[in-house]
Protein backbone atom coordinates (compact mmCIF):
# COMPACT_ATOMS: atom_id res chain seq x y z
CA UNK A 1 0.00 0.00 0.00
CA UNK A 2 1.33 3.39 -0.95
CA UNK A 3 1.45 5.74 2.00
CA UNK A 4 2.58 8.78 0.04
CA UNK A 5 0.75 11.97 0.78
CA UNK A 6 0.00 13.93 -2.39
CA UNK A 7 1.83 17.21 -2.59
CA UNK A 8 -0.57 20.12 -1.96
CA UNK A 9 0.49 23.62 -2.71
CA UNK A 10 -2.65 24.79 -0.97
CA UNK A 11 -4.64 22.34 1.16
CA UNK A 12 -8.23 21.71 0.07
CA UNK A 13 -10.99 23.88 1.50
CA UNK A 14 -12.46 22.56 4.72
CA UNK A 15 -9.27 20.76 5.70
CA UNK A 16 -7.62 22.11 8.81
CA UNK A 17 -3.96 22.42 7.75
CA UNK A 18 -2.65 21.51 11.19
CA UNK A 19 -4.99 18.61 11.87
CA UNK A 20 -3.35 15.23 11.64
CA UNK A 21 -6.70 13.40 11.92
CA UNK A 22 -8.05 15.25 8.86
CA UNK A 23 -4.89 14.41 6.98
CA UNK A 24 -5.14 10.70 7.73
CA UNK A 25 -8.87 10.68 6.95
CA UNK A 26 -8.04 12.17 3.54
CA UNK A 27 -5.16 9.90 2.68
CA UNK A 28 -5.27 6.74 4.74
CA UNK A 29 -8.78 6.34 6.14
CA UNK A 30 -8.18 2.65 6.86
CA UNK A 31 -5.49 3.57 9.38
CA UNK A 32 -8.03 5.28 11.63
CA UNK A 33 -9.99 3.28 14.18
CA UNK A 34 -13.54 2.78 12.92
CA UNK A 35 -16.72 0.86 13.63
CA UNK A 36 -16.18 -1.52 10.71
CA UNK A 37 -13.03 -2.81 12.32
CA UNK A 38 -14.59 -3.44 15.68
CA UNK A 39 -15.91 -6.68 17.02
CA UNK A 40 -17.77 -5.46 20.04
CA UNK A 41 -17.57 -8.81 21.80
CA UNK A 42 -15.22 -9.39 24.69
CA UNK A 43 -12.38 -6.97 24.18
CA UNK A 44 -9.86 -6.35 26.95
CA UNK A 45 -10.76 -3.53 29.30
CA UNK A 46 -8.37 -1.34 31.19
CA UNK A 47 -9.38 -0.31 34.69
CA UNK A 48 -8.33 2.13 37.39
CA UNK A 49 -6.57 5.37 36.57
CA UNK A 50 -6.21 8.56 38.56
CA UNK A 51 -4.64 12.00 38.62
CA UNK A 52 -4.09 14.46 41.44
CA UNK A 53 -2.51 17.85 41.70
CA UNK A 54 0.49 18.64 43.85
CA UNK A 55 2.24 21.92 44.55
CA UNK A 56 4.34 21.96 41.37
CA UNK A 57 2.22 20.02 38.92
CA UNK A 58 0.19 16.89 38.62
CA UNK A 59 0.63 13.17 39.35
CA UNK A 60 -0.98 10.66 36.99
CA UNK A 61 -1.17 6.92 37.63
CA UNK A 62 -2.81 3.67 36.63
CA UNK A 63 -2.91 0.03 37.65
CA UNK A 64 -1.62 -2.66 35.27
CA UNK A 65 -4.52 -5.05 34.80
CA UNK A 66 -6.73 -5.59 31.75
CA UNK A 67 -9.69 -7.94 32.01
CA UNK A 68 -11.87 -9.85 29.58
CA UNK A 69 -15.06 -10.58 31.42
CA UNK A 70 -13.94 -12.39 34.56
CA UNK A 71 -10.52 -13.39 33.29
CA UNK A 72 -7.34 -11.40 33.31
CA UNK A 73 -6.28 -10.46 29.78
CA UNK A 74 -3.02 -8.72 30.74
CA UNK A 75 -1.12 -8.44 33.98
CA UNK A 76 1.21 -5.69 32.92
CA UNK A 77 -0.59 -3.40 30.48
CA UNK A 78 0.47 0.25 30.40
CA UNK A 79 -2.28 2.79 30.96
CA UNK A 80 -0.32 6.01 31.39
CA UNK A 81 1.18 7.56 28.26
CA UNK A 82 3.06 10.82 27.85
CA UNK A 83 1.39 12.73 25.01
CA UNK A 84 4.08 15.40 24.77
CA UNK A 85 6.64 17.08 27.03
CA UNK A 86 4.03 18.56 29.34
CA UNK A 87 0.97 16.34 29.20
CA UNK A 88 -0.12 12.75 29.61
CA UNK A 89 -3.16 10.59 29.08
CA UNK A 90 -4.30 7.68 31.25
CA UNK A 91 -6.83 5.32 29.74
CA UNK A 92 -9.81 3.35 31.00
CA UNK A 93 -12.39 1.48 28.96
CA UNK A 94 -11.71 -0.81 26.02
CA UNK A 95 -7.95 -1.18 25.80
CA UNK A 96 -7.53 -1.52 22.02
CA UNK A 97 -9.39 1.60 20.89
CA UNK A 98 -8.00 3.50 23.89
CA UNK A 99 -4.41 2.75 22.93
CA UNK A 100 -5.16 3.61 19.29
CA UNK A 101 -6.75 6.87 20.33
CA UNK A 102 -3.73 7.73 22.45
CA UNK A 103 -1.36 7.07 19.56
CA UNK A 104 -3.44 9.26 17.26
CA UNK A 105 -3.59 11.96 19.94
CA UNK A 106 0.20 11.85 20.45
CA UNK A 107 0.79 12.20 16.72
CA UNK A 108 -1.83 14.95 16.54
CA UNK A 109 -0.04 17.05 19.17
CA UNK A 110 3.41 16.52 17.65
CA UNK A 111 2.06 17.23 14.15
CA UNK A 112 0.56 20.53 15.28
CA UNK A 113 3.77 21.48 17.06
CA UNK A 114 5.92 20.78 14.01
CA UNK A 115 3.64 22.45 11.46
CA UNK A 116 2.94 25.52 13.59
CA UNK A 117 6.29 25.78 15.30
CA UNK A 118 4.74 25.95 18.76
CA UNK A 119 2.79 23.72 21.11
CA UNK A 120 -0.95 23.84 21.55
CA UNK A 121 -2.05 25.29 24.87
CA UNK A 122 -3.12 22.74 27.48
CA UNK A 123 -6.70 23.86 26.97
CA UNK A 124 -6.34 23.27 23.23
CA UNK A 125 -4.99 19.78 23.80
CA UNK A 126 -7.84 18.95 26.17
CA UNK A 127 -10.40 20.12 23.61
CA UNK A 128 -8.74 18.12 20.85
CA UNK A 129 -9.05 14.97 22.95
CA UNK A 130 -12.75 15.73 23.50
CA UNK A 131 -13.24 15.93 19.73
CA UNK A 132 -11.55 12.59 19.29
CA UNK A 133 -13.85 11.04 21.87
CA UNK A 134 -16.86 12.45 20.06
CA UNK A 135 -15.58 10.87 16.85
CA UNK A 136 -15.43 7.58 18.75
CA UNK A 137 -19.13 7.77 19.66
CA UNK A 138 -20.32 5.06 17.20
CA UNK A 139 -17.79 2.68 18.71
CA UNK A 140 -18.80 3.67 22.23
CA UNK A 141 -22.39 2.80 21.30
CA UNK A 142 -21.22 -0.68 20.35
CA UNK A 143 -19.66 -1.13 23.74
CA UNK A 144 -16.13 -0.08 22.84
CA UNK A 145 -16.06 3.03 24.95
CA UNK A 146 -12.91 4.86 25.97
CA UNK A 147 -12.71 7.05 29.06
CA UNK A 148 -9.42 8.88 29.37
CA UNK A 149 -8.04 11.20 31.99
CA UNK A 150 -5.91 14.02 30.65
CA UNK A 151 -3.42 15.81 32.85
CA UNK A 152 -0.72 18.30 32.12
CA UNK A 153 1.25 21.28 33.19
CA UNK A 154 -0.17 24.56 31.90
CA UNK A 155 2.94 26.61 31.06
CA UNK A 156 0.88 29.77 30.61
CA UNK A 157 -0.80 29.60 34.00
CA UNK A 158 2.02 27.83 35.80
CA UNK A 159 0.00 25.00 37.33
CA UNK A 160 -0.98 21.37 36.86
CA UNK A 161 -4.46 20.73 35.48
CA UNK A 162 -6.68 17.66 35.23
CA UNK A 163 -9.45 16.99 32.71
CA UNK A 164 -11.94 14.15 32.93
CA UNK A 165 -14.17 13.04 30.09
CA UNK A 166 -17.30 11.04 29.53
CA UNK A 167 -17.73 8.45 26.81
CA UNK A 168 -19.40 10.87 24.39
CA UNK A 169 -16.78 13.58 24.54
CA UNK A 170 -17.95 15.74 27.44
CA UNK A 171 -14.96 17.48 28.94
CA UNK A 172 -14.83 18.60 32.57
CA UNK A 173 -11.96 20.22 34.34
CA UNK A 174 -11.28 18.79 37.78
CA UNK A 175 -10.00 21.11 40.51
CA UNK A 176 -7.85 18.77 42.54
CA UNK A 177 -8.07 15.06 41.72
CA UNK A 178 -10.06 12.42 39.91
CA UNK A 179 -10.07 8.66 39.35
CA UNK A 180 -11.87 6.69 36.64
CA UNK A 181 -12.54 3.04 35.90
CA UNK A 182 -14.13 0.14 37.74
CA UNK A 183 -12.03 0.87 40.82
CA UNK A 184 -12.35 4.62 40.38
CA UNK A 185 -14.78 5.12 43.25
CA UNK A 186 -12.56 3.28 45.69
CA UNK A 187 -9.50 5.17 44.55
CA UNK A 188 -11.36 8.47 44.86
CA UNK A 189 -12.42 7.59 48.39
CA UNK A 190 -8.80 7.13 49.43
CA UNK A 191 -7.58 10.29 47.72
CA UNK A 192 -10.44 12.29 49.19
CA UNK A 193 -9.39 11.41 52.74
CA UNK A 194 -5.73 12.21 52.17
CA UNK A 195 -5.83 15.09 49.75
CA UNK A 196 -5.06 18.69 50.59
CA UNK A 197 -4.04 21.53 48.30
CA UNK A 198 -0.31 22.06 47.68
CA UNK A 199 0.79 18.58 48.57
CA UNK A 200 4.50 17.99 48.14
CA UNK A 201 5.24 15.63 45.27
CA UNK A 202 6.42 12.64 47.30
CA UNK A 203 3.25 12.70 49.32
CA UNK A 204 1.07 12.94 46.20
CA UNK A 205 2.85 9.92 44.72
CA UNK A 206 2.28 8.00 47.94
CA UNK A 207 -1.41 8.86 47.88
CA UNK A 208 -1.66 7.70 44.26
CA UNK A 209 -0.10 4.36 45.13
CA UNK A 210 -2.27 3.93 48.20
CA UNK A 211 -5.42 4.76 46.23
CA UNK A 212 -4.58 2.19 43.56
CA UNK A 213 -3.82 -0.40 46.23
CA UNK A 214 -7.12 0.25 47.99
CA UNK A 215 -8.97 0.03 44.68
CA UNK A 216 -7.30 -3.30 43.95
CA UNK A 217 -8.50 -4.63 47.29
CA UNK A 218 -12.11 -3.69 46.57
CA UNK A 219 -12.42 -4.16 42.83
CA UNK A 220 -11.77 -7.34 40.83
CA UNK A 221 -10.92 -5.35 37.72
CA UNK A 222 -8.01 -3.51 39.34
CA UNK A 223 -4.64 -5.19 39.68
CA UNK A 224 -2.68 -4.67 42.87
CA UNK A 225 1.11 -4.59 43.02
CA UNK A 226 2.43 -8.00 41.99
CA UNK A 227 5.54 -8.58 44.09
CA UNK A 228 6.24 -12.01 42.65
CA UNK A 229 6.52 -10.72 39.08
CA UNK A 230 7.68 -7.21 40.03
CA UNK A 231 4.71 -5.54 38.38
CA UNK A 232 3.84 -2.23 40.00
CA UNK A 233 1.42 0.54 39.04
CA UNK A 234 2.58 3.16 36.55
CA UNK A 235 3.03 6.50 38.26
CA UNK A 236 4.30 9.63 36.55
CA UNK A 237 4.37 13.31 37.33
CA UNK A 238 4.36 16.41 35.16
CA UNK A 239 5.81 19.73 36.26
CA UNK A 240 7.35 22.73 34.53
CA UNK A 241 10.38 20.54 33.81
CA UNK A 242 8.22 18.09 31.88
CA UNK A 243 6.92 14.55 32.13
CA UNK A 244 8.81 12.03 34.23
CA UNK A 245 7.88 8.47 35.00
CA UNK A 246 8.76 7.09 38.40
CA UNK A 247 11.00 4.04 38.23
CA UNK A 248 9.73 0.58 39.09
CA UNK A 249 12.24 0.18 41.94
CA UNK A 250 11.19 3.41 43.56
CA UNK A 251 7.54 2.35 43.43
CA UNK A 252 8.44 -1.09 44.83
CA UNK A 253 10.16 0.60 47.76
CA UNK A 254 7.19 2.89 48.35
CA UNK A 255 4.87 -0.09 48.28
CA UNK A 256 6.99 -1.95 50.84
CA UNK A 257 6.88 1.09 53.08
CA UNK A 258 3.10 1.29 52.69
CA UNK A 259 2.71 -2.36 53.70
CA UNK A 260 4.96 -1.87 56.73
CA UNK A 261 2.89 1.12 57.73
CA UNK A 262 -0.32 -0.86 57.49
CA UNK A 263 1.09 -3.86 59.34
CA UNK A 264 2.25 -1.58 62.13
CA UNK A 265 -1.21 -0.09 62.33
CA UNK A 266 -2.66 -3.58 62.58
CA UNK A 267 -4.58 -3.20 59.36
CA UNK A 268 -3.27 -6.31 57.59
CA UNK A 269 -4.39 -9.72 58.79
CA UNK A 270 -3.40 -13.08 57.49
CA UNK A 271 -7.03 -14.21 57.59
CA UNK A 272 -10.17 -12.24 57.87
CA UNK A 273 -11.99 -13.05 61.04
CA UNK A 274 -15.66 -13.60 60.47
CA UNK A 275 -17.60 -12.56 63.50
CA UNK A 276 -20.82 -14.43 64.10
CA UNK A 277 -19.90 -17.41 61.95
CA UNK A 278 -21.51 -20.53 63.30
CA UNK A 279 -21.78 -24.17 62.47
CA UNK A 280 -24.77 -25.29 60.55
CA UNK A 281 -26.97 -27.48 62.62
CA UNK A 282 -27.80 -30.63 60.77
Amino acid at each position, binding site marked *: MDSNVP*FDQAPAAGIEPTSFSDLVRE*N*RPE*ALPSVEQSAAAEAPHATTILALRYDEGVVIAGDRRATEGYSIAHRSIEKVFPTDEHSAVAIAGTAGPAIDMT*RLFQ*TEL*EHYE*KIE*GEQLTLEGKANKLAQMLRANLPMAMQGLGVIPLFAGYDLGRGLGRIFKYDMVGGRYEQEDFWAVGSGGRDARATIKKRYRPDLPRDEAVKIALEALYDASEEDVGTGGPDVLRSIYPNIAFISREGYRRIGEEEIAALFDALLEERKAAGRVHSRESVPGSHEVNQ
Partner: protein
Amino acid sequence: MSLPYYISPEQFMKDKHKYAREGISRGKSVLAMEFSDGVLFVAENPSATLHKVSEIYDKVAFAGVGKFNEFETLRMHGIRQADVRGYSYSREDVTARGLANSYSQVLGLIFTEQLKPYEVEILVAAVGDDPETNELYHILYDGSVADEHGYVAMGGEAEALGEVLQKNYKDGMTMAAALKVGSKALSEVGGEAVPADNLEVAVLDRKRERRKFRRVSEKEIAELSR
Protein backbone atom coordinates in the same frame (compact mmCIF):
# COMPACT_ATOMS: atom_id res chain seq x y z
CA MET B 1 -5.75 34.36 -35.34
CA SER B 2 -2.60 34.49 -33.29
CA LEU B 3 0.29 32.22 -34.00
CA PRO B 4 1.47 30.17 -31.04
CA TYR B 5 5.00 31.04 -29.99
CA TYR B 6 7.62 28.41 -30.50
CA ILE B 7 10.37 28.15 -27.91
CA SER B 8 12.81 25.30 -28.22
CA PRO B 9 12.72 22.98 -25.17
CA GLU B 10 16.46 23.51 -24.68
CA GLN B 11 16.03 27.25 -24.46
CA PHE B 12 12.97 26.91 -22.23
CA MET B 13 14.79 24.67 -19.75
CA LYS B 14 17.86 26.87 -19.78
CA ASP B 15 15.73 29.86 -18.93
CA LYS B 16 14.07 27.99 -16.11
CA HIS B 17 17.42 26.96 -14.64
CA LYS B 18 18.68 30.51 -14.87
CA TYR B 19 15.54 31.87 -13.27
CA ALA B 20 15.67 29.43 -10.36
CA ARG B 21 19.39 29.93 -9.75
CA GLU B 22 19.04 33.69 -9.72
CA GLY B 23 16.18 33.48 -7.28
CA ILE B 24 18.18 31.28 -4.94
CA SER B 25 21.32 33.40 -5.17
CA ARG B 26 19.43 36.41 -3.81
CA GLY B 27 18.66 34.63 -0.53
CA LYS B 28 20.70 34.00 2.58
CA SER B 29 22.64 30.78 3.09
CA VAL B 30 22.41 27.73 5.32
CA LEU B 31 25.22 25.44 6.41
CA ALA B 32 24.98 21.91 7.72
CA MET B 33 27.91 20.08 9.26
CA GLU B 34 28.35 16.70 10.82
CA PHE B 35 29.93 16.83 14.27
CA SER B 36 30.73 14.28 16.97
CA ASP B 37 27.13 13.98 18.27
CA GLY B 38 25.13 14.53 15.11
CA VAL B 39 24.41 17.26 12.59
CA LEU B 40 24.65 21.00 13.20
CA PHE B 41 22.81 23.63 11.16
CA VAL B 42 23.93 27.24 11.03
CA ALA B 43 22.11 29.92 9.06
CA GLU B 44 22.12 33.66 8.87
CA ASN B 45 18.56 34.61 9.67
CA PRO B 46 17.49 37.92 11.20
CA SER B 47 14.06 36.50 12.09
CA ALA B 48 13.68 34.49 15.29
CA THR B 49 10.36 32.98 14.22
CA LEU B 50 10.56 32.39 10.45
CA HIS B 51 12.86 29.43 10.41
CA LYS B 52 15.09 28.05 7.68
CA VAL B 53 15.78 24.88 9.65
CA SER B 54 13.10 22.72 11.24
CA GLU B 55 12.13 19.33 12.56
CA ILE B 56 10.48 16.78 10.29
CA TYR B 57 10.52 13.60 12.35
CA ASP B 58 12.40 11.90 15.19
CA LYS B 59 15.80 11.77 13.48
CA VAL B 60 15.13 13.87 10.41
CA ALA B 61 15.46 17.61 9.94
CA PHE B 62 14.88 19.96 7.06
CA ALA B 63 16.68 23.09 5.89
CA GLY B 64 15.65 25.31 3.02
CA VAL B 65 16.97 28.37 1.20
CA GLY B 66 15.38 30.53 -1.46
CA LYS B 67 11.78 31.65 -1.50
CA PHE B 68 10.24 31.30 1.93
CA ASN B 69 6.71 30.34 0.91
CA GLU B 70 8.02 27.65 -1.40
CA PHE B 71 10.33 25.87 1.01
CA GLU B 72 7.70 26.29 3.71
CA THR B 73 5.21 24.39 1.52
CA LEU B 74 7.85 21.70 1.05
CA ARG B 75 8.57 21.56 4.77
CA MET B 76 4.91 20.99 5.57
CA HIS B 77 4.67 18.33 2.88
CA GLY B 78 7.59 16.52 4.52
CA ILE B 79 5.99 16.62 7.97
CA ARG B 80 2.69 15.34 6.56
CA GLN B 81 4.39 12.56 4.65
CA ALA B 82 6.48 11.53 7.67
CA ASP B 83 3.66 11.64 10.22
CA VAL B 84 1.27 9.64 8.04
CA ARG B 85 3.90 7.01 7.34
CA GLY B 86 5.00 6.78 10.97
CA TYR B 87 1.41 6.47 12.14
CA SER B 88 0.41 3.90 9.49
CA TYR B 89 3.50 1.73 9.91
CA SER B 90 6.05 2.44 12.63
CA ARG B 91 8.29 5.32 13.64
CA GLU B 92 11.36 3.49 12.33
CA ASP B 93 9.82 3.32 8.86
CA VAL B 94 10.24 7.05 8.35
CA THR B 95 13.60 7.54 6.67
CA ALA B 96 15.51 10.50 5.29
CA ARG B 97 16.03 8.59 2.05
CA GLY B 98 12.29 8.12 1.58
CA LEU B 99 11.64 11.79 2.24
CA ALA B 100 14.46 12.91 -0.05
CA ASN B 101 12.97 10.73 -2.75
CA SER B 102 9.54 12.24 -2.30
CA TYR B 103 10.96 15.78 -2.40
CA SER B 104 12.94 14.96 -5.51
CA GLN B 105 9.78 13.70 -7.24
CA VAL B 106 7.78 16.75 -6.25
CA LEU B 107 10.46 19.27 -7.27
CA GLY B 108 11.19 17.45 -10.52
CA LEU B 109 7.53 17.49 -11.45
CA ILE B 110 7.15 21.17 -10.60
CA PHE B 111 10.26 22.04 -12.59
CA THR B 112 9.10 20.31 -15.76
CA GLU B 113 5.37 20.90 -15.61
CA GLN B 114 4.90 24.32 -14.14
CA LEU B 115 5.70 27.58 -15.83
CA LYS B 116 7.61 28.90 -12.84
CA PRO B 117 10.04 26.55 -11.14
CA TYR B 118 10.52 26.64 -7.36
CA GLU B 119 13.41 28.88 -6.38
CA VAL B 120 14.62 26.65 -3.56
CA GLU B 121 17.33 24.30 -2.46
CA ILE B 122 16.63 22.00 0.43
CA LEU B 123 18.50 19.65 2.67
CA VAL B 124 17.08 16.55 4.31
CA ALA B 125 19.38 15.42 7.12
CA ALA B 126 19.16 12.45 9.45
CA VAL B 127 21.28 11.60 12.44
CA GLY B 128 22.34 7.96 12.68
CA ASP B 129 23.25 5.84 15.70
CA ASP B 130 26.90 6.52 14.93
CA PRO B 131 28.71 9.16 12.79
CA GLU B 132 29.02 6.73 9.86
CA THR B 133 25.25 6.43 9.47
CA ASN B 134 24.36 10.13 9.28
CA GLU B 135 22.60 11.09 6.06
CA LEU B 136 22.65 14.40 4.20
CA TYR B 137 20.56 14.75 1.03
CA HIS B 138 20.93 18.00 -0.83
CA ILE B 139 18.03 18.50 -3.26
CA LEU B 140 17.98 21.17 -5.95
CA TYR B 141 15.08 23.11 -7.48
CA ASP B 142 14.90 20.70 -10.43
CA GLY B 143 14.69 17.56 -8.29
CA SER B 144 18.29 16.44 -8.59
CA VAL B 145 19.62 14.87 -5.40
CA ALA B 146 23.16 14.70 -4.06
CA ASP B 147 24.10 12.43 -1.18
CA GLU B 148 26.63 14.50 0.76
CA HIS B 149 29.08 13.80 3.57
CA GLY B 150 30.73 16.07 6.10
CA TYR B 151 29.21 19.43 5.26
CA VAL B 152 26.76 21.11 2.90
CA ALA B 153 26.41 24.78 1.99
CA MET B 154 23.28 26.06 0.27
CA GLY B 155 21.97 29.43 -0.88
CA GLY B 156 23.35 32.59 -2.40
CA GLU B 157 26.93 32.20 -1.23
CA ALA B 158 27.05 28.42 -1.41
CA GLU B 159 30.18 28.20 -3.51
CA ALA B 160 32.26 30.60 -1.45
CA LEU B 161 31.03 29.01 1.79
CA GLY B 162 31.89 25.56 0.45
CA GLU B 163 35.46 26.70 -0.14
CA VAL B 164 35.84 28.10 3.37
CA LEU B 165 34.35 24.93 4.88
CA GLN B 166 36.63 22.73 2.83
CA LYS B 167 39.58 24.43 4.52
CA ASN B 168 38.23 24.45 8.07
CA TYR B 169 35.94 21.46 8.40
CA LYS B 170 37.26 18.42 10.27
CA ASP B 171 35.59 15.12 11.04
CA GLY B 172 34.45 14.54 14.62
CA MET B 173 34.46 18.17 15.80
CA THR B 174 32.63 19.09 19.00
CA MET B 175 29.45 21.12 18.70
CA ALA B 176 31.20 24.29 19.85
CA ALA B 177 34.02 23.79 17.32
CA ALA B 178 31.57 23.13 14.50
CA LEU B 179 29.55 26.22 15.43
CA LYS B 180 32.72 28.31 15.37
CA VAL B 181 33.67 26.97 11.94
CA GLY B 182 30.16 27.67 10.68
CA SER B 183 29.72 31.18 11.99
CA LYS B 184 33.25 32.07 10.93
CA ALA B 185 32.50 30.89 7.39
CA LEU B 186 29.31 32.98 7.27
CA SER B 187 31.16 36.04 8.59
CA GLU B 188 34.12 35.59 6.26
CA VAL B 189 32.00 35.23 3.15
CA GLY B 190 29.54 37.94 4.19
CA GLY B 191 32.38 40.37 4.86
CA GLU B 192 31.31 41.17 8.43
CA ALA B 193 30.79 39.27 11.66
CA VAL B 194 27.29 37.84 12.06
CA PRO B 195 25.95 38.70 15.54
CA ALA B 196 24.52 35.82 17.65
CA ASP B 197 20.96 37.18 17.40
CA ASN B 198 21.16 36.95 13.59
CA LEU B 199 22.18 33.30 13.67
CA GLU B 200 19.73 30.47 13.47
CA VAL B 201 21.32 27.36 14.95
CA ALA B 202 19.78 23.93 15.39
CA VAL B 203 21.08 20.40 15.94
CA LEU B 204 20.13 16.83 15.40
CA ASP B 205 21.66 15.46 18.57
CA ARG B 206 22.16 11.70 18.75
CA LYS B 207 22.22 11.83 22.57
CA ARG B 208 18.68 13.11 22.87
CA GLU B 209 15.74 10.80 23.50
CA ARG B 210 13.26 10.12 20.70
CA ARG B 211 13.11 13.56 19.08
CA LYS B 212 16.68 14.39 18.17
CA PHE B 213 16.01 17.87 16.83
CA ARG B 214 16.67 20.87 19.03
CA ARG B 215 16.94 24.60 18.43
CA VAL B 216 19.91 26.27 20.03
CA SER B 217 18.98 29.45 21.89
CA GLU B 218 20.73 32.75 21.46
CA LYS B 219 22.14 32.45 24.96
CA GLU B 220 23.57 29.03 24.23
CA ILE B 221 25.05 30.26 20.93
CA ALA B 222 26.85 33.02 22.83
CA GLU B 223 28.13 30.52 25.42
CA LEU B 224 29.31 28.05 22.78
CA SER B 225 31.11 30.63 20.66
CA ARG B 226 33.07 31.98 23.62
